[in-house]
């Protein structure tokens, strides 16, 4: 043996036994795990305005499957925002940017990034000092996940319960207002701040059509 490559290659450890031993259980474990929906690269965003979900204030980036003959409509973005927007509660939800949330407020599809700690502090500072604001609660991903799990709009057997993970959630601020206060300036202020994806008056969120 006088070839350098062969010699180096002969140092490669033997992995065959491990392969045979682990193959079945590793694959079974993977298949049992939920998959992320990361359809973005292959999909084009459809007109969001066509979807009444926008009324729910959701940053719903609904995408159409590349092959229209299959007639598949898949959600591209932020299913949890769509779903965790519980209707009718007297609060403003300020959804924060996370990575891979393809909305213009977060940098669009190619340049999106999560809200930074400084931006979060800025939002919190700005909103707590506004007139009419009674209380502001920060909700991290796990709090948003609880909210999602407890959302009456999600059926008990919904597949979404299995596919959504804590990591799919966006962070948010939940803002409650004093009686008689004007909500609009708070919503507009929040909406205009860097790192905020959307701010929603939850009272105006319409119940989705059912059945």
């Amino acid at each position: 043996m006088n070839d350098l490559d062969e010699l180096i290659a002969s140092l490669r450890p033997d992995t065959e036994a491990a392969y045979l031993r682990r193959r079945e259980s590793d694959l079974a474990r993977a298949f049992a795990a939920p998959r992320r929906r990361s359809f973005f690269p292959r999909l084009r965003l459809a007109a969001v305005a066509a979807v009444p979900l926008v009324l729910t204030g959701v940053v719903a980036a609904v995408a159409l499957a590349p092959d229209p003959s299959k007639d598949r409509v898949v959600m591209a973005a932020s299913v949890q925002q769509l779903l965790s927007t519980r209707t009718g509660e007297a609060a403003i939800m300020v959804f924060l940017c996370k990575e891979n949330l393809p909305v213009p407020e977060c940098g669009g599809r190619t340049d999106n990034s999560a809200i930074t700690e400084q931006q979060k502090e800025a939002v919190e500072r700005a909103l707590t000092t506004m007139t009419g604001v009674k209380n502001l609660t920060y909700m991290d991903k796990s709090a948003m996940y609880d909210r999602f799990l407890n959302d009456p709009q999600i059926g008990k057997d919904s597949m979404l319960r299995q596919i959504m993970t804590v990591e799919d959630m966006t962070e948010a601020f939940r803002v409650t207002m004093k009686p008689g206060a004007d909500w609009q300036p708070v919503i507009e202020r929040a909406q205009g701040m860097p790192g905020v994806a959307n701010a929603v008056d939850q009272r105006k969120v319409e119940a989705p059509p059912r059945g």
Partner: protein
Amino acid sequence: MIPFLAVIDGLERSLLGVDDSEARLTALYEEHYRSVLSYVLLRAEQQTAEDITSETFLIAWRRLERVSEPPLPWLLGVARNLLRTQRRSRLRGKSLVERLAELAPADDVAEQVAERQVALDALANLSERDAEAVLLASWYGLSPAEAAKIAGCSARTFNVRLHRARRRLADALGLSRLTFQEQS
């Protein structure tokens, strides 16, 4: 107009629907498991290495759409990141070459054992990074750009490491320059 529930139903259908994800992951596993494990074994004990490799393929499953082509560099990159987060169980204070010597396949042919020892001795004289460059290029046939990502440097730097390492190895092993194939 797409009604709310239709969107959800469509989503669920598309996820439940027949797709070839399982076949794809199986193919990835069959083709690349050995490569990923052999890489992780350099930095972790057997049990931990197998668990990290298992985790690597679990991540590939969860992000199947993101696995780039060719997949091996992507998989090795994931494995490397997992190794980083497993500081506790990593091999402490053991050099790459010491680890290689432990891992070397058992062989009863004395000649091969002796030759391997020569190669190990030669590798031991290289810096850790240079030795890793040789292994990445030789074991996996990665292009300099791909290997550089895994080694965490630029393609140019990787090339420098690789050429330097190979030259020294060839010298140390007394191999003729003619059999020393330059990689471009």
